[in-house]
């Protein structure tokens, strides 16, 4: 970007200052800032750096080198920005930018990444974890295996310790070994043995009997691998005193990359779909996370059980957003015209009442309306329609109508307020002049005030459209997206809009499919992006920015 040379507000910190001016500015800054502000700055930066160092240490200890380095880089950049003179815009922008970059820009890119994976229930970890998990699920105690004398430890010290538990055992030849969840047994240095049992160890603290009882659940759930090779089996305990060797029904062959069921002899192979599968296609769960390329997008457009609902939901999202804007705008404009008459008294009170639906939290309104529209017990059927059983929320078409009615209730006050504001900004003389020339009041309104009003309100209509396009709360709280479409391959109903479909695919029910949900998100990004670029082109908002 080129240095801006337009005549906006004056340029207090442009590069074109003379040297003496810059010196003067420095002196002013230094004298006016005061020691309190400097102290504040040092304390805040100190805290920031301390947190960053701590975070980076923890991250490095967890082998997350990339993120750890980014934390360090970020902290260095922030310190540099605030410790030097100048770079004033950066000082004011940095706090907001940090959050914007992580929680708005990064997550969008991350959605893009997730959309190309099979991340979801049964596929949320690495292959190594999946092998372990399968073996853990299918364990039996090895018959006639030796009994290990067991002691349960936790890490000693205060700083940087987790509350993880460790199993310390002695092997047949008397060496002490220690291990924990996903940490295979390894020789324990500096162990003190008493009658073949480890009673003390450097860096670890023995759990007392009371603590053992207290954390019984954790102790009995702990499974410690005997060696790096998962086929060697695991140590488990029932009482915290003795441990036994358990092995899995499945055997993992690392070189052939197969899982074999030792009872039936059936072989499961890695078929490249993120899970082990046998010849008949039966998969061992859990699987692991892999990159599936365009698979999620391909599924969305080729699988009938997904494509159908997706097209339907997209069309309804557009229809819903458009009709919501249209109905609220028409009612809001009508009321604004009706109440925009100076001869009318007590307009103030009407306006006060009309703000109420807008002020009432949206999610509560939707829940209350859902109660009133209940088919059997609701107020509308029982009182207003004298006991009729109108399926307001359970019939596919009536549910759509109900959503529009409730959104009209929620949204018309906004349009009323905005239209009133815009109407009052249009000089009254214009329509008076038209009426002098013989135009009827409605004619004068339609051909003079309305066009002026529409130009003023167009940007607000666009943002209202964008808001309703993602009006999750209303749809989810009123109908839950239902009534459900049973023929669809994903959990989706006939009032679902795109955003509520994403939520349901990712978070509702027992089967989460983050990959597919992210692919849908990306689709919404593309739609919203296209609409806003067209809208901004039309309204030329970008040109006003300077």
């Amino acid at each position, binding site marked *: 970007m080129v240095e801006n040379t337009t005549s906006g507000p*004056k340029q207090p910190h442009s590069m074109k200052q003379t040297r003496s001016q810059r010196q003067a500015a420095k002196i002013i800054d230094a004298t006016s800032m005061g020691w309190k502000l400097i102290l504040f700055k040092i304390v805040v930066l100190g805290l920031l750096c301390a947190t960053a160092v701590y975070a980076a240490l923890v991250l490095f200890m967890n082998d997350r080198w990339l993120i750890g380095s980014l934390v360090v880089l970020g902290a260095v950049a922030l310190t540099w920005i605030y410790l030097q003179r100048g770079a004033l815009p950066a000082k004011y922008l940095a706090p907001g930018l940090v959050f914007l970059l992580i929680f708005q820009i990064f997550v969008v890119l991350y959605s893009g990444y*997730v959309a190309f994976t099979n991340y979801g229930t049964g596929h949320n970890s690495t292959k190594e974890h999946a092998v372990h998990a399968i073996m853990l699920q299918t364990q039996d105690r090895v018959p006639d295996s030796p009994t290990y004398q067991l002691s349960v430890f936790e890490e000693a010290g205060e700083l940087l310790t987790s509350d993880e538990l460790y199993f310390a055992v002695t092997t047949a030849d008397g060496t002490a070994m220690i291990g924990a969840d996903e940490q295979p047994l390894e020789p324990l240095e500096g162990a003190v043995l008493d009658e073949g049992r480890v009673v003390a160890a450097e860096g670890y603290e023995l759990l007392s009997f009371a603590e053992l009882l207290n954390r019984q659940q954790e102790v009995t759930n702990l499974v410690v691998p005997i060696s790096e090779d998962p086929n060697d089996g695991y140590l488990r305990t029932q009482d915290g005193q003795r441990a036994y060797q358990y092995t899995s029904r499945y055997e993992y062959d690392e070189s052939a990359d197969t899982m074999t069921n030792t009872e039936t002899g059936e072989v499961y192979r890695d078929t490249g779909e993120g899970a082990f599968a046998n010849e008949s296609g039966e998969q061992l769960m859990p699987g692991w996370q892999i990159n599936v390329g365009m698979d999620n997008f391909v599924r969305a457009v080729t699988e009938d059980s997904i494509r159908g609902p997706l097209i339907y939901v997209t069309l309804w999202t557009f229809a819903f957003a458009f009709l919501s804007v249209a109905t609220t705008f028409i009612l809001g404009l009508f009321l604004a015209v*009706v109440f925009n008459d100076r001869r009318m008294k007590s307009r103030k009170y009407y306006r006060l009442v009309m703000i109420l639906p807008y002020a009432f939290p949206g999610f509560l309104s939707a829940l209350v309306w859902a109660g009133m529209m209940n088919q059997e017990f609701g107020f509308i059927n029982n009182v207003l329609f004298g006991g009729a059983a109108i399926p307001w929320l359970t019939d596919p078409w009536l549910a759509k109508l109900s959503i529009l009615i409730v959104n009209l209730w929620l949204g018309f006050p906004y349009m009323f307020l905005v239209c009133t504001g815009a109407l009052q900004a249009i000089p009254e003389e214009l329509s008076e002049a038209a009426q002098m020339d013989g135009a009827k009041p409605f004619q004068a309104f339609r051909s003079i005030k309305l066009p002026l009003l529409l130009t003023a309100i167009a940007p607000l209509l666009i943002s209202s459209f964008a808001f309703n396009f993602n009006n999750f709360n209303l749809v989810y709280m009123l109908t839950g997206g239902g009534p459900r479409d049973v023929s669809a391959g994903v959990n989706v109903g006939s009032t679902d809009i795109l955003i509520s479909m994403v939520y349901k695919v990712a978070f509702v029910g027992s089967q989460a499919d983050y990959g597919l949900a992210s692919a849908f998100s990306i689709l919404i990004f593309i739609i919203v992006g296209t609409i806003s670029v067209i809208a901004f082109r039309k309204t030329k908002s970008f040109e006003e920015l300077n």
Partner: protein
Amino acid sequence: MQDSQVSLRRPFRRWWRETGWRHLVGAAVVLFCVFPLVYVFSASLNPGGTLITANSLFSNFSLDSYIELFNRPQQPYAAWFLNTLFIGLSASAGSVLLGALAAYAFSRMRFTGRRFGLITLVLVQMFPQLLAMVAIFLLMLGIGEVFPAIGLNSQIGLIMVYLGGALGVNTYLMYGFFNTVPTSIDEAARIDGAGHARIFFTIILPLVSPILAVVALLSLVGTLSEFVIASVLLRDPERQTLAVGLYQFISQETSQNWSIFAAGAVLAAIIPVALFLLLQRYIVSGLVAGSVK
């Protein structure tokens, strides 16, 4: 009553043609606006009431449901209320501060990338954070594995996510208002020896307080009703917000404890409604400047 006085001075037909019918429209609108609110208020005063008994409006008048509301171990309403206030106030204060800092930079300084930054903010505004809810969930899951205090199921984490949306939503609105404050004020202060920080905090901020109030209020109300991200991130009932808690309340018990839900809804609505009514003048100006609830 005022209307009848008017009709004494004007012939009835003329009064009807000029303003009378407008009052008729007004009455219909008032009815439409108010009846769900009256309904929920009446239901809250009917202890032990279900959906069906709530239909006879004001048949009972007792505050027992409000008391019962605070004595349900499964649904810790008091905790939800305080959580919502804490999260809402922190996020709103943070958003105002971050937004004001950025708006000041865009309005008063000229720097490389300024126009690009403004255009980016306008574009970012079109993409609400909830579009990326899956990624936000997975990010917080990852953060939680290393730093449980700010990861999944943490309110601090949720506030941080909300702050991520602060710049996109608020800066542009504030930027417009900052531009209406004449720069000659800054210059006068600078000549008198004030540094940039002093000018910002003691001179500019008081002058733009109307827009600060609007942004604070809108982001407070927005956070109070925010459901998607809060429901995805907060897992323990003790840590949830009103939106998440009340939704689960109603989906678990459907029509059985309608009166208690209604009491919860009335209490939850008091703060936002009161704020809206008190600050309505500011809000209307903010709305016309281009913000949606």
